[in-house]
């Protein structure tokens, strides 16, 4: 049997008011990919943060290669040969790709403190080449898209010659091609005898990469099983403690009323002539590879970025959207793909974030906020979307990723927008929550709302959309109805340059 690299026993951790882990357990052998799954807030990230010295455990023991260790800070973890790709991006946006990858381990020359920038870039280039990443080492990270930033994170973790590599939802921001590349890298690492901890909500991935899977629920250890010996459904029922219902598409039951029409939209080099129509009561899927320009289109329609050319019609009337305020007035809401940067006031409470876009509804005289009303509204939304939060006044930054996403959805539902643009709505969200969101999307369109859903997960696009628009390099290259769409056809258009 291979060497036991990591053994965590009876780990307990509480945050103010939240018991995040109770007697959690985990083991990792050399040369295995060990998946860790659980619902949002199950404590996966917390457990890994304890292993990497970000949080200190309240009690419990950690053994690395049989030795009991105390991991007080991230440096200790690094020295023990543990590296991690955090779920939240942890990059220095003002630094370049290469500088980010080697932060803390910069090559020096001459005296001890002098940097060898050339060597740094060379090594970064080398690393990026070996893992087939198309990134410029000298590019500033703040100029990269989320997907590319995620790749920088991966490169950073791999650059540490670690024996244990933790990946906390590495694929949530990636498209198919990069995911393939990541899997190739994982197989390679595995063959070198490294241990990999793999956290993901995309359960279909597990069969392809993982050897064993550990399931957590409510901060507790549930079970560890060989991946070949369980079905997806079994994993899900271990995760949620109940059977899950996965909705099918609502079917093409929409009217022909066009609520949003975009004509010849252009913006810089990223949007080159985009036209499409959105009908009432329809989910319009937007498919494409990373960087196809879907996010750009969404932002442009929403008025977040200025457009160079093009016309937008809402319910047949031509509108001029110069800023998000205009868009909201015309009943358009936008859920960004990067919820922390663009979606949430992280330091504020759940209630405020929910009513943020619709304060007008709750105002009394002189801008007075009717707090009874906002509280009621927030409470209703929390129940409706099953948002897990201890109180209304909890700061959003302490919620798990999935619940944060639900808070943003609640915000737009409160605003009662008729046209909703969801950019990667299920990114980083567990199966349970995902199915809830699908159900919700279906309910919304039944109520007569119209949805644009941008997603890089083809199964999701295929399952949910009434129609699918495929983009490639800033152009609309194809449009498919739900009945004619298949993965292959979408990929065909998505690569049609």
């Amino acid at each position, binding site marked *: 049997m291979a060497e036991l690299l990591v053994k965590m026993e009876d780990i307990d951790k509480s945050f103010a008011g939240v018991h995040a882990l109770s007697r959690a357990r985990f083991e990792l052998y050399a040369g295995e990919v060990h998946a860790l799954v659980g619902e949002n807030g199950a404590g996966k990230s917390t457990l890994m943060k304890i292993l990497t010295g970000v949080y200190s455990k309240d009690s419990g023991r950690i053994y690395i290669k049989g030795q009991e260790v105390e991991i007080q800070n991230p440096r200790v973890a690094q020295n023990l040969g543990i590296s991690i790709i955090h779920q939240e991006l942890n990059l220095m946006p003002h630094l370049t790709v290469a500088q980010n990858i080697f932060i803390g381990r910069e090559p020096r020359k001459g005296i001890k403190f002098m940097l060898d920038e050339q060597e740094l870039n060379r090594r970064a280039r080398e690393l990026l080449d070996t893992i087939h990443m198309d990134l410029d080492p000298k590019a500033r990270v703040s100029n990269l898209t989320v997907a590319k930033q995620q790749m920088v994170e991966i490169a950073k973790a791999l650059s540490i010659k670690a024996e244990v590599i933790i990946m906390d939802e590495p694929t949530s921001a990636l498209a198919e091609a990069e995911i393939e590349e990541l899997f190739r890298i994982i197989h390679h690492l595995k063959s070198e005898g490294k241990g990999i901890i793999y956290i993901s909500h995309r359960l279909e991935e597990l069969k392809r990469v993982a050897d064993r899977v550990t399931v957590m629920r409510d901060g507790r250890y549930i079970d560890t099983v060989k991946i070949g010996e369980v079905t997806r459904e079994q994993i899900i029922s271990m995760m949620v403690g109940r059977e899950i219902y996965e909705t099918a598409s609502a079917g093409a039951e929409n009217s022909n009323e066009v609520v949003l029409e975009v004509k010849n939209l252009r913006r810089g080099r990223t949007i080159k002539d985009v036209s499409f129509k959105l009908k009432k009561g329809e989910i319009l899927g937007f498919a494409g590879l990373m960087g196809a320009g879907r996010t750009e289109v969404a932002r442009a329609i929403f008025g*977040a970025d200025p457009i160079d050319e093009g016309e937008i019609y809402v319910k047949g009337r031509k509108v001029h959207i110069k800023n998000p305020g205009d868009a909201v007035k015309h009943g358009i809401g936008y859920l960004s793909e990067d919820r922390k940067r663009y*979606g949430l006031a992280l330091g504020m409470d759940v209630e405020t974030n929910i009513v943020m876009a619709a304060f007008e509804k709750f105002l009394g005289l002189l*801008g007075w906020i009717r707090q009874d009303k906002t509280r009621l509204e927030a409470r209703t939304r929390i129940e409706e979307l099953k948002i897990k939060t201890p109180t209304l006044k909890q700061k959003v930054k302490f919620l798990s990723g999935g619940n944060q996403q639900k808070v943003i959805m609640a915000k737009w539902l409160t605003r009662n927008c008729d046209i909703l643009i969801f950019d990667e709505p299920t990114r980083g969200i567990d199966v349970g929550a995902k199915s809830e969101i699908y159900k919700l999307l279906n309910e919304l369109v039944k109520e007569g709302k119209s949805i644009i859903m941008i997603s890089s997960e083809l199964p999701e696009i295929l399952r949910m959309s009434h129609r699918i628009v495929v983009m490639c390099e800033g152009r609309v290259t194809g449009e498919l109805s739900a009945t004619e769409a298949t993965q292959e056809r979408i990929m065909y258009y998505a690569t049609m340059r």
Partner: protein
Amino acid sequence: MDNKVTQKKSLLHSDAAQKLLAFGSLIILFIVFSLASPNFAKFDNIVGILLATAVNGILALGVTFVIITGGIDLSIGTGMTFAAVMTAVFITNWKLPIIIGVVGGILMGGLCGFINGIIISKMKVPPFVATLGMMMATKGLSLVISGTKPIYFNDTPAYRQIAMGSISGIPNAVLIFFVAAIIANIILTRTILGRYDFALGSNEEATRLSGINVDAWKTAIYTLCGLFFGLAGVLMASRLNSAQPALGQGYEMDAIAAAVIGGTSLSGGEGTILGTVIGAFIMSVLTNGLRILSVPQEWQIVVTGTIVVMAVYLDIIRRR
């Protein structure tokens, strides 16, 4: 039994207890000075402290709003002076009724704040630079307009009553400060302006993408700050019975310090009016107490510096 323990705990962590504890440093200072000098806790001296806090406190209230957005306003000190000078011009030079002069002075403060807001939100000049410019502009203009001479309110003795008239021994300036603090607290916690104030400081881009007119609200917040320093100018002029055109620079740091000592975070998104009021009092109790104890002036400065750091440190420990 289990229930009791929880109750006890919740009492300790209750809001009221928390708020009382926040006064910690202030109370300690107060007790120490009272024990050290019999003259400290006298009614007259307390009134003196209150009065000394009023102007700086009102400045600090205004700048609290700005700091919560993650911005800064360096023009509050000289802007206050500008408002004072304009009030004096209205009342003494132009012979306008006092009430119009007062409202005019406050509005002149608001105007400065409005211009700050426009430069920051529309021209995208960082708040530090924009308000630094306004600081210099108002400082210079005060001197130009007044002819570098104080303007007195000798013809209008009623003007002095605005700050120095008193109700049962408490000067109006103090009452005005408390009323201003209450209003500021209501605006910050109960109105949409306050909510957007925090939202801007917490995540400006997310706020914009929620369809909120970020530029307009930011301008409104700087304008509000301007109205506060306008009010401070009116009170200052009233207290000195004159507009002193050279005064003002340096006051912004005292006010910002009061807000920051009171727990307002310079990176935005955090702050309370109560904290700012306490911060302002910590500063003036310290100054007054050390004077009462006749500590040599150079040592006063050293001690003040040390205690300010310790007060904030205590607060940090308390919150853990």
